[in-house]
Each structure stands twice: as structure tokens, then as C-alpha cells.
């Protein structure tokens, strides 16, 4: 039996980078094949060529034993390649059915389409009401729409790009069930991820890429997470080093009854959020994306100001009325989730980006004039201390890879020695090596007596990093508990909240 997909010597160059260098591997029918690699290892480029979004410079793609040219995604779908992207393309104001109908190449009468959708959903246990508006759905439910959309075309190869980064543990388990059923029926799955335990649980084979080159093809069940991670980053992995038996200090950041107004149609405000973070404590906030994390970060950083002075206090001093500059002067720094355009300006140099948040705390401004020398020196220190791969303070933020930009941003805030640091998704889309460095820096900052709030969707990260954990759901924050006392199932249930229950009710008729 020929391989479902066989790549031979695939090479693709972009100006300045070789994204894929002579990559060859194959996927058998019914195989769940992991594509593993750090950010910038060339996974996305490779997949885009299989799905016809890009064309390889050299090498060939064989489908069921025959060499093919995949001119565009439509041609890929015709071959039987389905793809579920990391970022969904859904219209929030339309229903599930309408969204699927819009994405179809062929026009199918709505009644017939609905019947087919229900058939696919029953077959694979994907619970979803086709008449619900997308805006009311959780991220996991939205992903199901994308999966159903792909399955309607009877794919022989399904590509999943980082599918679990937005799901609760329970949703991940449900997704794996669906994928295993699909594979059992002969559909091959190409699964892109950097979550190693998932790959161990799900995949039959793993192809590891590093710097555009194929490093290894292995059986993940025979490997440890650590051995795969080391192949991925090409070096030994460092563990987080923590001082043993450290005691937490006095309450530093106290948030009481913090709330925000609903800003846009799909904005999720926070309501009545209260928590306390002690000096030296890392406080984790888990939750599925879109449950008020952005509003919470903005309300803490000062982008959204409170009308109550004492809604947020640092060492007893009320900062609720202050803006971001005022709060920074009081010692509160923040890192929002979106790197480009929010935490940093892509068109500006790194040096100019340092002025954005460090100008007051580090004396880069004198009488309204900018001391660019001080900014340059500080930026150089950030680049050196956080091993940011950049040519220097004069490189533009936009020229850095996602992981490097994140290291720079985290470094920019941490080296200001804030007494309170609030970060959202500190290692989102960051490779394992950089993530370890960022985690260590956060632990060190806490050890020096700062209070740290980490908002993240990555439960592994939160459990490894935090002392205390709370869950945000629909803008409400759960009771905070020591991280050792909560099980992953409990967190998952809290994360699912109302959405999880609704999902079970929405059984197709």
C-alpha cells in the first residue's frame, strides 16, 4: 500500500532564511503523525506547502504514490487534504450552519448540508447545535465547527495546527477521541504541536524539525518528553531552579471587587474580581481564551482605569485611579498577551520600544526630552541578559521572531525590577528553550520579593510556575487555592464553567 503522503527533499527559502531544507518524511493511511518543532523550525511553512498555500522551491509531494502539484488550497481539498487552522476563520454573528455553508467550495442546499453536518457530528461525537450563533460558543466549540467543516469533505489527510492551545483538559480528551476514531477509519492525521505529553498520548510517529531541517523521525511512545524536547531545541533542557522552603511575605497586590464595563459587542468584561498576591508569590490565573483575561490585564495595567481608588492597592496604596504611567511609577509593570502592536511597536527599534514602558522608571526622560543613550544601554542589557537573538538595540521589533520578541518584552519589564508584575501568556508561541528562560526569570523575580500574576491558558505552565491558582470564567474569578491542592480535573471543570454544561445539552436532534 502506498504512503498517503510522501514528501521528498522539500526545500523552501524566504529572503534571508531557509525555512525548509531538504525535508523528507511520509505519512501512512490511518497514521497519526506528529510534526514537532520550536517556533520558526519550519512546521507552518511545510504544512502550507502541503495545503497548497505556498509552493516548494525544490522537492516533490507524492499523494497515494503519485507525484502531485498542489496549486492552491482548493486543489488540496480536492485531493482530500483538510486543514484546521490555529486561528479560526468564523463570522461571530452567523450561525454554525451559515459559517460552514460559506466555507464550502460547492453550493449545497441548506437542508441537505444540515443533514450531512448532523450525520458527521453523530458519527464522531462532535456535539454542537448547527443553529447556534458562533459568538455564543466557547473556543472548543468553535474548533469543532472547523473540524466538522474539514470532515464534510471526507478528507484522507487532516492537518491540525496547534489544536489544543485553546482547549480545557476535558475538551482536549474529547478532541483526541474524535481524532482516534478518524484514524481508525483510515484518515491520516498530521498533528502539529509542541505539547509533548499530548504527542506521546496521541501520535504513532513524530517528525522533529529544527531550524528547517529534519532532525529525527521517532516513535513518541518510545521517547520521553524530555528526550523529544532536547531533540527539538538541540540542547539540554534546563529545569526551573527554585529556592526551597521560601516563605511568602506580606500581601503586596490586593485587588478587591474590580470590574470593567463591556467595551465592544464581543468583549468579556470582568466582574467583582478579588484576590491577594503576597510578596514572593506567583499567582496563576487559568482559563479558556475569551473569558475576560484581556479586560483583567487592561484593568490591572491601567489601560482601563477603575473609578475606585482602592480597587487595586500595592502595599496598601490605592492605584485604581492611576493610568499605566502612574501605576508603573508605583511599581506595577504589565505584559499583555499580544506582542506586536500592543506590548511592542513592530516598526520601532528595540531601543525605542524600551522608551515605551521604561522611560519613567529608568530616567530616560529629562525635561520632556528623551535620553536615547540611556534607552540604548538598557536595551543592550535586556538583549544580553535574556539572550535575545537580535542584531542590537537598533533592530526593529518586527524583525524579531515571536519567541525572541517575547524574551525582549519580558526582559524589558523584569529588569525594571517591578514590585508587581502582571503577565498574560508569557510563553505563548515561544519555543521550549525560551520558555524555560522566561519561567526562570519569573521565579527569580518572585524570589527577590516581587508579587507576580501570570494569566495563561497553558495549565502545565501554571502548575509548574505558580504557588497559587485561580480560574477565570466569563469574567468571574474562582476562589484561589494553593497549586498543590487542586487536581487538573477540578481546574478543567472550573475552566469549562457554564460553557461545558451547555455543550453537553446541545446534543444534535
Amino acid at each position, binding site marked *: 500500500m502506498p504512503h498517503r503522503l510522501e514528501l521528498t527533499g522539500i526545500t523552501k527559502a*524566504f*529572503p*534571508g532564511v531557509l525555512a525548509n531544507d531538504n525535508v523528507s518524511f511520509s505519512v501512512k493511511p490511518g497514521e497519526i503523525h506528529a510534526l514537532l518543532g520550536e517556533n520558526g523550525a519550519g512546521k507552518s511553512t511545510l504544512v502550507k506547502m502541503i495545503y*497548497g498555500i505556498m*509552493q516548494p522551491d525544490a522537492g516533490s509531494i507524492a499523494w497515494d504514490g*503519485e*507525484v*502531485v*502539484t*498542489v*496549486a*492552491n488550497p*482548493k*486543489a*488540496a481539498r*480536492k*485531493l482530500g487534504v483538510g486543514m484546521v487552522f490555529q486561528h479560526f476563520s468564523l463570522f461571530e454573528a452567523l450561525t454554525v450552519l451559515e459559517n460552514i455553508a460559506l466555507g464550502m467550495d460547492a453550493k449545497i442546499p441548506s437542508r441537505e448540508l444540515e443533514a450531512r453536518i448532523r450525520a458527521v457530528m453523530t458519527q464522531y461525537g462532535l456535539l454542537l447545535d448547527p443553529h447556534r450563533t458562533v459568538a455564543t460558543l466557547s473556543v472548543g466549540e468553535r474548533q469543532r465547527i472547523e473540524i466538522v467543516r474539514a470532515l464534510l469533505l471526507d478528507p484522507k489527510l487532516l492537518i491540525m495546527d496547534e489544536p489544543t492551545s485553546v482547549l480545557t483538559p476535558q475538551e482536549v480528551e474529547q478532541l483526541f477521541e474524535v481524532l482516534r476514531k478518524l484514524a481508525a477509519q483510515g484518515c491520516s492525521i498530521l498533528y502539529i504541536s509542541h505539547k509533548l505529553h499530548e504527542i506521546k498520548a496521541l501520535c504513532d510517529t513524530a517528525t522533529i524539525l529544527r531550524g528547517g531541517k529534519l532532525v529525527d523521525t521517532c516513535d513518541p511512545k518510545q521517547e520521553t518528553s524530555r528526550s523529544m524536547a532536547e531533540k527539538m531545541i538541540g540542547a539540554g533542557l534546563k529545569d526551573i531552579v527554585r529556592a526551597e522552603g521560601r516563605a511568602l511575605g506580606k500581601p503586596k497586590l490586593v485587588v478587591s471587587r474590580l470590574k470593567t464595563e463591556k467595551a465592544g459587542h464581543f468583549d468579556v468584561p470582568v466582574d467583582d474580581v478579588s484576590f491577594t498576591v503576597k510578596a514572593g508569590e506567583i499567582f496563576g490565573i487559568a482559563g479558556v481564551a475569551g473569558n475576560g483575561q484581556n479586560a483583567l490585564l487592561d484593568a490591572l*495595567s*491601567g*489601560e482601563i482605569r477603575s473609578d475606585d481608588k482602592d480597587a487595586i492597592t500595592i502595599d496598601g496604596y490605592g492605584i485604581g485611579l492611576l*493610568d*499605566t*504611567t*502612574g501605576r*508603573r511609577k508605583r511599581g506595577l509593570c*504589565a505584559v*499583555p498577551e*499580544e506582542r506586536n*502592536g*500592543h*506590548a*511592542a*511597536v*513592530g*516598526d*520601532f527599534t528595540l531601543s*525605542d520600544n524600551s*522608551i*515605551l*514602558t521604561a*522611560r519613567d522608571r529608568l530616567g530616560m*526622560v529629562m525635561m*520632556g*526630552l*528623551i535620553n*536615547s543613550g540611556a534607552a540604548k544601554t538598557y536595551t543592550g542589557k535586556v538583549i544580553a541578559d535574556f539572550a535575545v537573538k537580535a542584531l542590537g538595540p537598533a533592530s*526593529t521589533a*518586527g*524583525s524579531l521572531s515571536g519567541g525572541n520578541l517575547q524574551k525582549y518584552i519580558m526582559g524589558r519589564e523584569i529588569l525594571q525590577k517591578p514590585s508587581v508584575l502582571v503577565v498574560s501568556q508569557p510563553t505563548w508561541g515561544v519555543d521550549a528553550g525560551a520558555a524555560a528562560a522566561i519561567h526562570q526569570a519569573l521565579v527569580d523575580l518572585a524570589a527577590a520579593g516581587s508579587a507576580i500574576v501570570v494569566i495563561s491558558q497553558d495549565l502545565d505552565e501554571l502548575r509548574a510556575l505558580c504557588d497559587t491558582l485561580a480560574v477565570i470564567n466569563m469574567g468571574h474569578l474562582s476562589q484561589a487555592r494553593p497549586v498543590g491542592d487542586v487536581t487538573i480535573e477540578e481546574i478543567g471543570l472550573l475552566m469549562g464553567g457554564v460553557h461545558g454544561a451547555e455543550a453537553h445539552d446541545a446534543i444534535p436532534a
Partner: protein
Amino acid sequence: MQFRLEKRREPSKLMTYLTPVAAVVLTMVVGAVIFSAIGYDGIGAVREIFLTPLTNSFKWQDLGVKAAPLIIIGVGLSIAYRANVWNIGAEGQYVMGGLAATGVALATYTMTGWWILPLMFVAGMLGGAAYAAIPALLKTRLNVNEILTSLMLTYASVQLIYYLVRAPWKDPMGMGFPQTRRFAADALLPNIIPTTIVHAGVPIAIIVALIAWFVMSRSVFGYQMKVVGAAPHAARYGGFSENKTIWLAMLVSGGLAGMAGMLEVAGPFQRMVPGFPTNYGFTAIIVAFLGRLNPLGVIFAGIVMAITFVGGEVAQTTIGLSSSATGVFQAMMLFFLLAGDILIRYRIKRVVPVVEARA
């Protein structure tokens, strides 16, 4: 055959500075072709418009006088545009600055003193800034697009001139002409080079541009304008209020347009006349872009635009080219410049026709 624009990884710095030059050269070449095609001496037109003002030293003073208001207004617009605040109504703010200065000149008509000109200068800037405050208020309070309001207010300001010079400010000795009296000696700009028409506005324009360059490159104010324009969300995170920035951008660009209006009315015009609005405020939009929104670049761009104005007049007398030809050349320059800007950021790619997937 289909084409598509594809984003470049990093726009070339060199090309950013070369496009204005390329735009001017393309304007000359295409201009020559077009005017030849419609039966004029195309090459002659380009020579008269672009070269004669430079080669004929008698025209240099005209260049300075025409360039000064363009530079002052262009500098203000380049600051506002950096912050993505699209003040299109500099012409109206220029008019209001001129009117405010006229008001002071007429009120002090019988007085003498060195203080009259500085007072007019301040009044001019305040007049322009106040007129720009209307779009700023509407934008920040009601989120009304500043492009529309600032542009429409221009036409209102022109009507205000017509009213003032026909009724309350009409020259009593003017034999019914719709214009004000000629300003008293202490309300007129001094000539700085004897026997020429070069007035104090010319060095002021250069000084304004230099100060603006320093402020934009070194100060927190300049940083604020740039960061709000480049990434509004990051600006908020950095502690810069968007509304405050809109106000600052409108007031500065309006104030500078008003300053240019004062210098024009107290300089070349010497009185307020219905023909006072001469499109400097609109041409300065081209100047700001041609100068890459950089105050130093605006000096050169202002001179280039002044060349086309002066050259247009030359071509009118020497080869009988209509005065509208100047507008055609200026418009072409903006067109080529904006097209060049697109090509700096994007490359043109042919769309590969759909091929069946099966080999």
C-alpha cells in the same frame, strides 16, 4: 493575467528616501509625454516649470516666498500625519490665522509699536489652532471623522473672508473693492534682503522646520505622535492617551497653518483680500508626504513645490501653458509618490493560474 500585492519582509530604507526623487523624475518624464501628446511643447513645459526657476536667479526670491508657507504648513501636517490624525483642513486654518492677524492689524491701525507684529503672530497661531480645535473636539467627543470636518470647515472659512472684506472690514477708501485697508507700517513684515521681496517669513520657515525636527526626533511629544500613529494599542499600554494626542496634533498643525496665514497676510498680501486662499493648505499635504513626514524633508519638498508654482507662472508667459498645468504636475507628483510608497511595502506578484492538482 491577474496581479496581486504581496507584503515585503522589510521595506527598504534606501528606497524610502529615493521614492520622492523618483516621483519628481517620473512626473517630469510623464508630464513631457502627456503635454506633447496634447499638442504643447512638452519638453519645453517641463524645462520651464522645473528648471527655469532654478537657473534664473531672478526667480530665487519667488521660490523662497512661495516655499515659506508651504514649509510651515507642511511641517505641521507632517507632525499630525505621523500620529494618524488626518488634518485636511490646513487651508481653512491658514485662512483663519490670516483673519485673526488681520483683526489685530485693523484694531491697531492707528497705533504704532514693535509689539504689533508679535501680537499678530500670536493671534494668527491662535486663530489657526482654534479652528483646528473644532474637528478635534468633534473627533474626540463624538468620533466624527476629522478628514470630513476639517475639509468642510475650509469652505466655511473662505465664506467668512468674503463677508468680512465686504462689510465690517471693508476699506473705507477702497472705492468699493472688497478688501481691507493696507496694513499700517508696524503691521507689515519687514523685508530681510533689501530690493527683493524676501520677507521675514522665509527664515522663520526654516527655523520652524528645524525646531520641529528636533522635537519630533528627541522629545517625548514626538515619540507620542509616532507611537500613537504606528500602534495605537501599544501607545495606550505605554501610557499615551489617544484623545490627548489628537488634540495636540490638531492644535499644532492648525497653529502652524495659522502662523503661515499671518505671515502671508502681513507679508506678500499686506491686506486681506478675497483671493487670500491660494491652496497653500492643500499643496502642503503633498509637501508633507513628499518630505516623508520628516520636517527636514519638508524643507526640500516645500522648495520643489515652490518650483512648480513659480515655473507654472513662467510657462504661462513663455510658452502659453494654462495655469492649470501646475496642478496637473503637482497631482502627478503625489500620485507617483503614493504609488512608490505602496511598492516599497509590497511587491507585485503575478497570480499563478489555477492548475488541476492531479499530475
